[in-house]
Each structure stands twice: as C-alpha cells, then as structure tokens.
C-alpha cells in the first residue's frame, strides 16, 4: 500500500471525505479486514482518556492593579498559587489544598470553577518595592477577567497505570482510591484500548506540536511528560491549551480521601493512519494491554508485584489475586473516554479539527530514575534494642508483673512454645488484669500486635507509632521470632543526636 501523508488526510478533512473511527472500533476493523485493508480504509483513529491527572495546572496573568503589586503570595478561593515568577503571573496547581477547607477543596476545584464561569475570590500580598509599592490586594475575578489562563500540565495521559490492592488488615486511603483490607478490592486507571499512547507506542505521530483535544479545547503536546518512561510502557505527555476555550464537562475537581485534591482531565489524540504499521498498532485491544498488580500495603517505592493482568481482565470486574476473586474498579472513566474519542471524531468529520505533523519526535529511550538520596536513612535495625525480654503465653499474670517490675520494661512480647510472637502485654494490661481478677496471661494479652521489620526505614515505624497511638513495637524476623524492640523512647533519644543522622524528625 502507498503511504498517506498528513497533508492528504487534512485535505480529506477539509472536503469532508475523511474516514475516522474511534480506537475501540479500530481493533474490530483490523481483526475483520486485516492490517492492509484497514490501513487503506481508515484515515484517522481517535483516542480518548478521562481520569485524575495530578500533574496539571494553569498559568494565570491577572493584569496590574493600581497602585501595582508584585505578588509574594496569592490565593484563589483560599487556594495558594505559585508566584515565584513575574509580578502578576502565577501557577495554580491541581493538587494544592485549600487553606481553610483542606482537601475538600483545592486547585482542581478552582480550575473547574473558573471554567464554569464562577466568580473567584482573589487575595494577594506583595513585597512592596519602588516599582510595585502595593503590599496587599483583595478582589473578585472570573476567567474572563484574566489576561491569560493557559493550562500547562507537566504530566498527563500516562500510557498505563499499575493496579493497586492491599494485603494488610487495615483500609488504606491512597491516590489509587480506597483499598479495602485483605485484597478485598483492586483499583486501576487508564483507558485501555482507547488510551492515546497505547495506540502510538513508538511515538510515530504523537510528538512536540501534535494537536490534541484538551478538556473541550484544542491543545498541543509540548514535550515529553515528567517521568516519561517509554522503555517500560510508561510514556507520558506534557500538554498545553487555552483554559478559556475549555469546557467544565471535561474538567472536574476531585478529592481522593486521605490523599488529597486532584483534577480529572480529558485528553483525546487523533492518530493519522499513515501506513500499515500504524494501522496494526492502532488495532490494539484491551486483551493486548498488560499491567501489574501491586501491593500498596507495602509503603516502599518498590512495591511487590503480585501478578500481571490485562485490561480485558480488569474490565471484566473481577480478577484473581492470591487465590481470591477480587472486584475491580477503574478510577478513570471509560464512558467519558469514549465520549472524548467520539467528540474528536465528529470534529474531524465536520472539518473543524486539522491534524499537525510533530515538529520534533519524543524520546523513546528514556527511563524513570529513582531519587538520588545522599543522606543516610536510619533503619529499624540501627536503633532497635536487641536484648529483649519475652514471656511465655502459658505464664501467669504474676510472672509477667514480676518481669515488668524487675526489668522496668513496660511492653513484654508474649511468645509461643515455638518462640513465635503471639501477643504483647503491658504494665497497663497487668493493672487491668489485677482489677478484674484474671489469672492467665493468655486471657489479657493483646493478640493483634503491630510489628516492625528490621529492614524497615525508621520513618515508617514512626508513622505507625503515631497513627495507632502506641509506644513500642516488637521487631520480628520472617519466622515471627522476636529479634528486637523499638520504642518511642529510643526514637526520642535519636532525635537528640540529630547531627549523627543529619536528618529531621517531625515529632
């Protein structure tokens, strides 16, 4: 087949003869007609995605006040925007929480309210200089009153996302939504076969300068997104578009409980079917797209991978994890993603949306590096007490009381015959036991014990101690044998020697 050019396709868009299909239909066409026929038949494939995209925000220019002000800090409906640029320029980020309402309201909501035409309360404080003498201002503005409101999102339209689940016995509230205990649910994100970057995985047509649909307006890809990692199918895009032309239907402020504020953004990218290779790639279906299920119960950067899974399996509503049937939920909207792909299709068919050739290709060989950490991070094993007094579960309360008195240790791990941790007993438990006339230790010990791992960073243990309001944790090995204790007293001592760790604890 002869390859098509973008100019030829644009001519067809102008004269109304262009053949456009949405990406989900393209997989059917390719499997029915084959790649060669599909490439001849179809000129453009439209993709779409609509999901929470935290790395989003808007550059705003307010115009000058009289007398003029150089803003030191500025708030829109009590949400702070970044002013470390020129006098009345600011960047309002999607995840910035409101000063008075916390995560119930924030940057994402202000952006939605601006687009919906709602009045926004603005207040700012200034430096007070010879050229910008004013030190304070308060006013009410709408989107119309702003000189520019340019949406510029450093990372949008991620190629894929991981699937999140939770092995622990506590509910976790994460940026991947509510994760119920013991693998009770699994949440995923992304538009599957409709996803823009999965339809052009080698960045042949999506590059710098590609015209896109951005939340109801025409926008552009302006470069690789932050954390762009095409080598591992985690490509991302940096995009820009005029907020004044956008629609509130495709921009929604949102809150992930316990995590914070974000913004749902809608992106649609047309992919010109220039050759058979592109036809084949746009023929991708949900069953071809594989991602990983990770255990968010592990609070580390590298979370354990529990299994690999396709979007087809995820979209069925149930997947198997560790032998359990687990219900799945998407966090992005397939309904809205299809709507965007369809709207872009209509725009192309009506001659309102022309394709652009990228002026530069995006890198296809970059990877996402972890943060370089130069300060040493203390681990549990560095600070735990290794001499631990334990007590048998068959001991009496009197034995426990004696041990506590002799050792002055207030938390005693209780162990089984096989020396495995089965509970913990505290001085408080003993007093209660005496008052209530209990005799056996097994009756009064706490069986659900929070524990620490020797290789765990101390920072995570401090979070556990604070969150559950406890003052000591047994440190156990893989066989549940107690190998140490970590207490808030030791952590306090460590803070005293801050210089040694060059590290600040927030207690």
């Amino acid at each position: 087949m002869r390859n098509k050019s973008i100019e030829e396709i644009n001519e067809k868009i102008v004269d109304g003869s262009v053949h456009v299909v949405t990406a989900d239909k393209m997989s059917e066409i390719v499997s029915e007609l084959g790649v060669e026929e599909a490439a001849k038949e179809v000129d453009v494939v439209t993709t779409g995605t609509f999901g929470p995209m935290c790395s989003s925000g808007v550059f705003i220019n307010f115009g000058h006040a009289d007398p003029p002000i150089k803003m030191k800090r500025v708030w829109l409906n009590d949400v702070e925007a970044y002013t470390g640029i020129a006098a009345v320029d600011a960047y309002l980020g999607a995840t910035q929480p409101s000063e008075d309402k916390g995560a119930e309201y924030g940057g994402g909501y202000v952006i939605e309210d601006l687009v919906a035409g709602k009045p926004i309360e603005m207040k700012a404080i200034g430096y007070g200089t010879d050229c910008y003498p004013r030190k304070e201002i308060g006013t009410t503005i709408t989107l119309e009153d702003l000189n520019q409101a340019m949406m510029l999102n450093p990372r949008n339209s991620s190629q894929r996302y991981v699937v999140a689940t939770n092995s622990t016995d506590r509910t976790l509230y994460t940026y991947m939504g509510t994760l119920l205990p013991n693998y009770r649910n699994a949440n995923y994100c992304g538009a599957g076969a409709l996803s823009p970057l999965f339809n052009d995985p080698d960045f042949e047509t999506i590059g710098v300068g590609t015209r896109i649909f951005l939340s109801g307006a025409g926008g552009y890809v302006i470069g690789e997104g932050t954390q762009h990692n095409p080598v591992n199918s985690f490509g991302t895009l940096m995009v820009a578009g005029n907020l004044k032309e956008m629609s509130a239907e495709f921009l929604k402020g949102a809150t992930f409980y316990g995590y914070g504020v974000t913004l749902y953004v809608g992106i649609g990218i047309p992919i010109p079917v220039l050759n058979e290779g592109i036809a084949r790639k746009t023929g991708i279906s949900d069953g071809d797209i594989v991602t990983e299920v990770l255990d968010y119960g592990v609070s580390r950067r590298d979370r354990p991978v529990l299994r690999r899974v396709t979007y087809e399996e995820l979209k069925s509503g149930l997947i198997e994890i560790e032998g359990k049937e687990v219900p799945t939920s998407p966090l992005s909207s397939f309904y809205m993603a299809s709507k965007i792909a369809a709207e872009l299709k209509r725009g192309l068919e009506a001659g309102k949306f022309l394709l652009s050739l990228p002026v530069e290709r995006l890198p296809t060989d970059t990877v996402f590096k972890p943060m370089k950490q130069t300060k040493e991070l203390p681990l549990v094993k560095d600070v735990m007490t290794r001499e631990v007094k334990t007590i048998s579960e068959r001991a009496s309360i009197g034995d426990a009381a004696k041990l506590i008195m002799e050792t002055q240790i207030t938390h005693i791990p209780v162990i089984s015959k096989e020396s495995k941790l089965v509970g913990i007993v505290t001085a408080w438990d003993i007093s209660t036991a005496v008052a209530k006339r209990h005799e056996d230790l097994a009756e009064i010990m706490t069986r659900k014990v929070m524990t620490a791992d020797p290789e765990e960073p101390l920072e995570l243990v401090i979070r556990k101690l604070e969150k559950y309001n406890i003052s000591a944790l047994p440190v156990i090995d893989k066989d549940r044998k107690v190998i140490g204790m970590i207490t808030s007293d030791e952590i306090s001592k460590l803070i005293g020697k801050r210089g040694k760790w060059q590290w600040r604890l927030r207690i």
Partner: protein
Amino acid sequence: MKLLLRRFSSRLHETPYTAEVILETGAKINIDRANVDAVRADLIIDVPEDKVERVAALFREKGVEVRKLVKLIAWDETRCVHCGACISVCPTGVFKFDPSWNISVEEEKCVRCEVCVKACPLGALACVE
C-alpha cells in the same frame, strides 16, 4: 422497605425488643447495620413490604424511634463522571456498569455503610437521612 430504628433509653437494651417484634409479627427481618454507642443505638432493618406498618407501629409502642428510609444513598448524577470507584468498595453490589460504561445504581441493595461516600472522588454520593 428499610427502617431506621433509634433508641436512646439505655434501659431498653435490656429487653430483647427486636426479637419480640419478630415473634409478634412473624416478619422476616434482616438487620443490615447496627451502631451502638454510649448514647444511642441505630439499627437499619429490612422488612417485607406487607409487614412494614405493623412492624413500625410495634417498635414505636416499645419506645423506639422509627423512620422509613426512602433515600438510602443519594447519587448526584450531574456530578458523577461514571469512573466506577464506588463499584469495588461496595459490599452489596449497589453499583454496576451498564453496557455503555454508565453507572447504574440499585439503591434497594444499600446497607448505608457509607464506604462509597469516601471512595467517590467527585463527591457525588451521600447518605442522607
């Protein structure tokens, strides 16, 4: 029909009032949810339609406040973007996707555990009394 039962009198908890109502009416009552604290006890029960009036009257006689729950979960369709975050957290399967990936809500299955209220990123779900 779901009923919200609320009792304040701590003396009442010494009498098996729920059992008494069941025995007296023969109604097959399902207890969806129970919250008991120092001040009050809230129960949500599911009662067969034909016995609702009789069951409600008997509970009232025994000193329990009874309210019919007409709205179990309020879903703001204009705010909803049909993402589906509510689906996997719901213990009783109230939320489902229809074939075009729109959310459909089977309200009568709701037990008002309110997990979905926190899980909805758009704030489109609420438990109202």
